[in-house]
């Protein structure tokens, strides 16, 4: 039975298609594994097995971030205000996975409304890092990353607004893919920041990420901003990086990065060169302002997106309110956590009349400049590469009292979100945290032009093969 859990999704799907494994048997093996969740990765787990499924992902269990609506299945976005809410409909992403034969293994824990970089902002308790339970798994898709990294799911989907797939993937030693904005429908994905949110995959390897993306991507009439990926997505097969040009943004690489992370990053650049790729330092002059712009735009959109949680139609309604205004106030005061309230306040402020231009307008101009920086870089280079996160997994509670320090975890991932570009984080090695301790996974980020997912996956596949990362939580934790 345990042999089944060693298979990648692509291998398992192949064997199920060949009739060597029964879909139900494979799914049940993973249900048993998920039942052993000690990381608080899951908020809900499938109660039934599967039967009668077909398609490229027949019987494949997928851990689904609890931000995707699933009809009749609790969906909370990690928030008390949606406790007990079971949506009347299913998100397009989950529906498409289902059409490919996959089934929901469970709903994974997350930072409330995807606001956070540590998964500590969940109303249902923090998620623990499978490599070191005293550390965070990253966020906001921390439950999905911990489930895949900790052997509780073969693959997962999450959402990435400013790094919420890539950063936890990096911290949990797995692959995290954020596709181009518009590649996958956002319909049924609970909105945090609509112009940035994008669904993506958290998997053991690049091939599995391609497999999920192939099923997920596509234009959806329910999402006007979705376009899909022209030509679809195929399993990558490239073995070298000959003739490919990789840009390292000097501005980003010079900034505060843990020494262990820097060492792995530089070793990975050498690996790229060994495979025939060329490394050049290139300017992305506005990328370093990404965090500032992001923390205006995302809260602004969030303040509007989260206004619907008012206690009138669904979810929590506070008791004992005397009138309408009091009902709104009490419900939202009791239903939202501190970080969500902070961002709603921030977002409301920056959109207020008299401040709009100084904050929101300006942030949008920075966003445009960052996008043009990338466009200029891609005129010369095939990819931009950075570390995914400036540090390895940090300790639980380490940054909860310092929101700005927490926000900086997304320093390397936010600019790509602002530019809507596809980016992937692959595990590149292990490093000691600054200040010492057992070695932990380090992610390497590759960024491609919009809708160049296939090229991105091919390069990541070749690099992944050469790096040969095969550490597992138990071993890594031992040093």
């Amino acid at each position, binding site marked *: 039975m345990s042999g089944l859990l060693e298979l990648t999704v692509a291998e398992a799907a192949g064997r199920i298609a060949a009739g060597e494994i029964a879909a139900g048997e494979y799914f049940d093996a993973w249900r048993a594994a998920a039942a052993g969740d000690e990381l608080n990765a899951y908020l809900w787990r499938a109660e039934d097995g599967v039967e009668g499924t077909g398609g490229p992902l027949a019987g494949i269990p997928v851990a689904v971030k609890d931000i995707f609506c699933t009809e009749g299945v609790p969906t909370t*976005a990690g928030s008390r205000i949606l406790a007990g809410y079971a949506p009347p409909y299913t998100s397009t992403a989950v529906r498409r996975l289902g059409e490919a034969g996959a089934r929901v293994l469970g709903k994974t824990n997350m930072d409330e409304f995807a606001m956070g970089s540590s998964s500590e902002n969940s109303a249902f308790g923090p998620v623990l890092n499978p490599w070191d339970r005293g550390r965070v798994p990253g966020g906001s898709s921390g439950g999905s990353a911990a489930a895949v990294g900790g052997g509780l799911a073969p693959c997962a989907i999450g959402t990435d607004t400013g790094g919420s797939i890539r950063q936890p993937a990096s911290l949990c030693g797995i692959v995290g893919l954020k596709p181009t904005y518009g590649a996958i429908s956002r319909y049924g994905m609970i909105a945090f920041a*609509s112009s940035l949110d994008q669904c993506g995959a958290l998997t053991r390897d690049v091939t599995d990420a391609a497999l999920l993306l192939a099923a997920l991507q596509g234009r959806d009439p329910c999402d006007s901003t979705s376009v899909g990926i022209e030509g679809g997505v195929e399993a990558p097969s490239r073995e070298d990086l000959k003739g490919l040009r990789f840009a390292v943004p000097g501005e980003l690489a010079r900034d505060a990065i843990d020494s262990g992370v820097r060492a792995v990053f530089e070793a990975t650049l050498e690996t790229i060169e060994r495979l025939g790729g060329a490394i050049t330092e290139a300017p992305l002059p506005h990328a370093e302002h990404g965090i500032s712009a992001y923390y205006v735009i995302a809260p602004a959109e969030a*303040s509007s997106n989260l206004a*619907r949680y008012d206690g009138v139609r669904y979810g929590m309604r506070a008791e004992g309110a005397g009138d309408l205004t009091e009902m709104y106030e009490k419900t939202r005061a009791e239903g939202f956590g501190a970080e969500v309230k902070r961002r709603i306040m921030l977002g409301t402020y920056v*959109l207020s009349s008299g401040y709009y231009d100084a904050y929101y307008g300006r942030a949008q101009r920075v966003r445009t400049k960052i996008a043009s920086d990338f466009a200029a870089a891609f005129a010369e280079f095939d990819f931009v590469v950075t570390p995914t996160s400036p540090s390895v997994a940090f300790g639980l509670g380490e940054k909860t009292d310092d929101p700005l320090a927490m926000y900086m975890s997304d320093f390397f991932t936010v600019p790509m979100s602002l530019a809507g570009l596809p980016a992937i984080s692959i595990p590149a090695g292990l490093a000691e945290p600054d200040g010492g301790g057992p070695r932990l996974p380090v992610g390497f980020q590759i960024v491609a032009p919009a809708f160049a997912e296939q090229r991105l996956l091919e390069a990541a596949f070749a690099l992944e093969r050469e790096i040969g990362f095969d550490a597992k939580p138990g071993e890594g934790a031992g040093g």
Partner: protein
Amino acid sequence: MAELEAVIGLEIHVQLSTRTKMFCGCELSFGDQPNVHTCPVCLAHPGVLPAPNEEAIRYALQIAVALECEVAPRSIFHRKNYFYPDNPKAYQISQYDIPLATGGRLDDIRIHRVHLEEDAAKMIHVGESGRIHGSGASLVDFNRGGTPLVEIVTEPDLRSAAEASEWARLLRTTVRQLGVSDVNMEEGSLRCDANVSVRPAGSEELGVKTELKNMNSFRFLERGIEAELARQQELIGAGAAVVQETLHFDPRGVTLTSLRSKEEAHDYRYFPEPDLVPLAPTEQMLHEARGSLPELPAARIERYREEMGLPPEAAAQLAADPEAAVYFERAAGAAAGVEPRVVANWVTGELAAALRQEGGEAGATGSKVEPEALAALVVMVQEKRISHGSGKTVLAALVAEGGEPGAIVEREGLAQISDSGELEAIVATAVDANPEAAAQIRAGNGRAIGAIVGAVMRETKGRADGAEVNRLIRDRLGV
């Protein structure tokens, strides 16, 4: 004190009569059970996205083109944020700085802008006040929520309450003729707010304006504006100032109640709706909108006068009512050999009078008189197959029971006496029976002929042609 001049602008909301709502697939309805036309989208469940209704965009473009506006190449949807239970997302999707169309005109009144938005749900406040304050409970009916609305804003070009209401009627006729809305004020598919101010006659500056709401008929629109103009003139006359505020019109006492003053005005925190791409009508869409324009009242009046030879009054009367115009044109087309002017006289004269007599509310279109039947009747009268008097009798029968005029003429024995020998004999008898009248006619008193004509008509039950009877009497008396 200088003479004060009224300055009035109108803001008109037109509910489009599309099959479905603006951003979801729910059907539009009026008067159905509450909350049966709802779905996750129009109830603002977590994760839903708006999908614009193409039919609504087509209708809005037709309105914009009919009002001679310039259509924006890329107009933008914005979110207008406010908390209220009739607004489930807590924002209304509307248009703000770049509306669908700008700068048109209807008649002599300039159109400031035309934009697309969605309607709010309907609130029902339980209790005596009928308002949210002081009511025991409030119920929300989401059937109306999300209905497509077009907002039309005029420049402040109207100079009296009567002109405003007359212009609003012309706008209604124009929109009704496009077939894009029921434009019914009582049912709320046409809603009219007025911005009212006064200034010294001849001044170019605008005075402080107030906004009048809740005038749900043209009569109330006129009365409301009149009342507000009187109030403002009185204030200024007494040396006081007009305060900018929103006033609620109560038709029962023709009173105006202040809703909220500018000090507590909402900050709607408008920002571009990230869930929608800009609305960029293609050349094809604009071409279709222009091509689908029916003849509008002004052009129709012109054609009736120039091409069909109608007198100005009849032309205006028929053109103002699209249904009457269609009826008239069908009748005129069917009345072979009869001038349209004559048919118009029958439609606006005899038929209108007969319908009034019958007491029905319906116009010609809703009556039992088919336009082809009226045409047949007019032809019979013109060809002197029946007398004008008999024509009225037949028309009364048509109004009461419908059917074919020929059959009624036959049944009632109204066919004109065409055998001149028969009529001559009746005339001879009548002359002999009225010797006094005959003597007076011979003596030169022409008016005395009436008595003998009357006798002939009684004898023939009106089946004789009056002119012919006159001629025969004079022949017989040798005058």
